[in-house]
């Protein structure tokens, strides 16, 4: 199963509800294109909801990092919401847990952006 992205806006924050697999090929490219499109439109505060991500590989992890860097370089913020245990473990192993701002409550996450 490839990755699906649904986009919504809450209080000026763009939430990407991701589902499926973020892996080399389609999933990673879809995430990259989605973030690039948002930045091009001036949406710089992005919350990635990973609650329905079933699988992520090293390419997908790399894509999360690249998205984080792109948004930061554009003067925005990218945060992660609703990590599954598997994704949580992977971010801990790779020490990226300290890089990302990770939330488990959507309302709190929305309120944490600088805006």
């Amino acid at each position: 199963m490839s990755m699906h992205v649904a986009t919504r806006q809450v209080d000026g924050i763009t939430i990407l509800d991701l589902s499926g697999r973020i892996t080399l090929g389609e999933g990673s490219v879809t995430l990259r294109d989605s973030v690039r499109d948002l930045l091009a439109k001036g949406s710089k505060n992005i919350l990635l909801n990973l609650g329905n991500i079933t699988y992520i590989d090293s390419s997908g992890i790399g894509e999360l990092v690249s998205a984080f860097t792109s948004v930061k370089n554009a003067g925005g913020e990218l945060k992660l919401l609703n990590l599954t245990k598997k994704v949580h473990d992977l971010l801990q192993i790779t020490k990226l847990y300290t890089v990302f701002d990770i939330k488990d409550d959507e309302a709190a996450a929305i309120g944490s952006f600088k805006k």
Partner: protein
Amino acid sequence: MTLDSSLASVDKVERTAEDFAARAGFDEDTVPNIVMAVREAAVNAILHGNAYDTAKQITASFETTADSLIVRIADQGPGLDPDNLPDPLAPENILRGSGRGIFLIRAFMDEVHFRKLHPGTELTLIKHRAPAAPA
């Protein structure tokens, strides 16, 4: 199995790894880790080894012994020096968009061996079955 250098081959290797790991009796937490390590090895062989060259192939073999699951993935690429890979945990590398595949393989398997082929590289991934609980 011998496979062409495409992402479809990665999926085949991944599915086979899942079957073997489950049949070897690994628990539900360990099977996904083995599958991920094998997938990363297959991606490495196709992407970094064979560089998607349609003239080159990868081979994958799976073996279950009394105490281990042994997976071998080989490519026909220019070769890989495992001692000179950047550390993905180093501060200067932590924000890199790639370079975590071998690290994850080592994290999830008990033994990882690299063998130089002519041409190519063979990775051997070994996961030991948990020792029996004392009576």
